[in-house]
């Protein structure tokens, strides 16, 4: 694996959580590299630290020790503003519980990354272009008819597709998916997986997914096993 192919790398990642006076080590020096355009799955049981690893790689949380290199930059030695910008422009997140803004409609949720990077003064000029792009992505994930609905008016599968649309509308370079099918029935979960596979295969989107479901994981290009905060070698 050459450096040119690597879009994201974690080096010696350690994460501790404080539990009162005690410290709980969730990750024990994880080294991980993600190649551009691959579909990587991190498989592990509940409590193995896979969501924590995903949050560190997605720049949502700071490691206690170690580095995250994103597109050649040491993310946590850069200013917080840079990490915010990366999350807004280069990274997309899909969560197990969708995490859509309940007060915003589907299309407004999809426009959220654009609304975060655009000022009120510029919005009237960019709004229609951004909206057209959001509508195209929503149509692509099969929500063309539900754009004005609030999240609570959608089914679980539709909510997850709306969350995927929000994660994709700004054309991220890496998509992080945290148990995207964990809260869905098997048919809807399979449908979501098909969407993710299509994005990876046809549009070359790098996907990093964590799951505890081995049947879901086997659809990825590469699977890493995480147990007790450590990556297991030789089981790729």
């Amino acid at each position, binding site marked *: 694996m050459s450096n040119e192919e690597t879009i994201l790398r974690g080096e010696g990642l350690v994460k501790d959580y404080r539990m009162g006076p005690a410290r709980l080590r969730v990750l024990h020096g994880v080294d991980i590299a993600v190649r551009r355009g691959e579909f990587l799955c991190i498989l592990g049981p509940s409590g193995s630290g896979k*969501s924590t690893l995903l949050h560190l790689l997605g720049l949502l949380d700071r490691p206690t020790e170690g580095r995250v290199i994103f597109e050649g930059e040491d993310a946590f030695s850069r200013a917080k503003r840079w990490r915010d910008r990366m999350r807004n422009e280069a990274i997309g997140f899909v969560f197990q519980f969708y995490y859509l803004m309940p007060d*915003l409609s589907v299309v407004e949720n999809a426009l959220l990354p654009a609304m975060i990077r655009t000022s009120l003064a510029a919005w009237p000029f960019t709004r229609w272009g951004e909206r057209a792009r959001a509508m195209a992505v929503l149509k692509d994930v099969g929500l063309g008819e539900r754009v004005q609905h609030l999240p609570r008016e959608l089914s679980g599968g539709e909510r997850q597709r709306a969350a995927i649309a929000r994660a994709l509308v700004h054309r991220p370079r890496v998509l992080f998916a945290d148990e995207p099918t964990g809260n869905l029935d098997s048919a809807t979960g399979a449908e979501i997986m098909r969407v993710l596979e299509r994005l990876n295969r046809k549009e070359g989107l790098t996907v990093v997914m964590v799951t505890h479901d081995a049947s879901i994981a086997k659809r990825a290009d590469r699977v890493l096993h995480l147990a007790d905060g450590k990556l297991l070698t030789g089981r790729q």
Partner: protein
Amino acid sequence: MGEWLTSPWFWPAVAAGGAVVLALAALILLSPVYKHIVCLKYLFGGWKAVVPIISALPAALGVFLLILVFAIMDGFVNETREMTRGTLADIIVDAHLGGMPYYDEFADRIKRIEGVEATTPVIQSYVVARIKPSGEFRFVKPIVRPCLLLGIRPAEKAKMGRFVNYLGRKVPPDAPPQALEHLLDVPTEYQRAGQPPRPGVIAGTAVIGVPVTDYVSETVQVGAGRRVLAWFLAAAATAAFLFIWRAAVHRPGRVGWRVAMGLAALSAVGLSVAALAAPVRPGQVIRPEVVDYPLLKRGDDLVVSTIPVRPSGAIKMEPGGLPKVSSRVFALVDVFRSKYWEADSSHLYVDFDVAQQMAGMEGSPAEGVPARASQIQVKVRDPAAAGTVVDHIQKAWEAFQAERPDEDLPHVTVNTWETQQRMILTIVKVQRNITTLMLGLMFVGFAVLIALISYVMAYIKSRDVGILKAVGASDAGVGSLFLGYGFLIGLLGTALGMIGAILMLHYLDQIEIWVNQTLEVDVFPRTMYYFEHIPRHLSPWWCVGVGGAVLGLATLASMVGGLLAAIRQPVETLRYE
């Protein structure tokens, strides 16, 4: 409004206000659009928006009361100031009862000071007035009242304040000085054959009168109070319609919402039509008012007695050790009514020379004793600069004293009218300030409420905070969303309170009449106040100050929620469901 426009602070304040508004506009325009959209969704997103709207009500009530009460109390202060000032002059050079010699010479010197427009000497002496009622009251026993005798030169005094405006007779504002000189002259028909001519006196309306309750009729606009009430209710119905509409948008197909929306719309339209169509017509109201019923008519005798004071301050004595009493019979030529009780119940205006003689201040050229005056009243061009003129007059008097080292000139006090009347003005101002302070404490409650609401909002919206941060919103950006939330609640409260207060002040008399007649509660009894209407003075500065304070307080208080949102780590909120 006029005083506001002519204030020297007007343009600097406009420039500062403009700069603040521009800075705020730039801040808003350059901030990310998500903050505005999410903030407005939190505020106006269906029925839960009722919470912030209700939390705006304490602010609205506080703004309403502060503006209303301050305007009324400031109206009292202003009216009292104007009444007090009208009976005095801008500056009073007071030599007290002992008097000051060479007053005309010193008055000329004062006139040469920059900013001085006119001067006049005044004699002031404490007297007793004996009023023997005449005509229908001729059987009433004579009344003796303590009074203040003021010896004036009418034409000069007329330039000092509003003396002429307070007289019973109508004197045109452009009356020539010659006409004013004769204000104290006794017309021939008042003089009595076979008796020595009597000098004239202008007496305060309460000096020669007895207070009686009279019922006076007043023309008012009947129905205006009902119209205001209808407008308030129409605005409330419109707000209710907007809320129901917002909520109904997300609940398509539910009949109950449509019915509620229809009812609210119908109410809003109906009340607006009622407000427009409510008849407002002139009508008569009759209400009690205290008037001073005069016991004397023009031309009647008024006997004034006083004890003359020597230049040393000693009382002139008769042989035998009794104080010498100086008495004189005057003919009443006019009455004086300034609505300032202190003046109306004690002032007797007589000719300067006559008063000087009665007070024993006429001097004796043969013995080389100069004549004296109690005061020199000074009119300045710019009342705001009176303080500077006071300093110049004090220096001029010191120089005047230094030029006459052998004369032993008395000590004089130089004060503006405001300083001299500080007791009465201070009492009214203290009342105003205490009321303002107590009402201002309401805002502490409002700030606590906003702080709690913003904290609870940031807490219950913590998942939204996590989502926003996960898609790239900065900590400060998400925190400021909650500041904007508090600011908008404050803005809503300020707008509601200010509109309500301005409307209330505009229709205060009509509302007072409506309350008086409908509820039979006399909120402003004319038997206690000299004012014909509830005084009011709406200061735009005060409105700006109150509005700014509420907005600032709301924004500051919402920092509690803002800080909670800013420091919250996204993984803390997104990790657990």
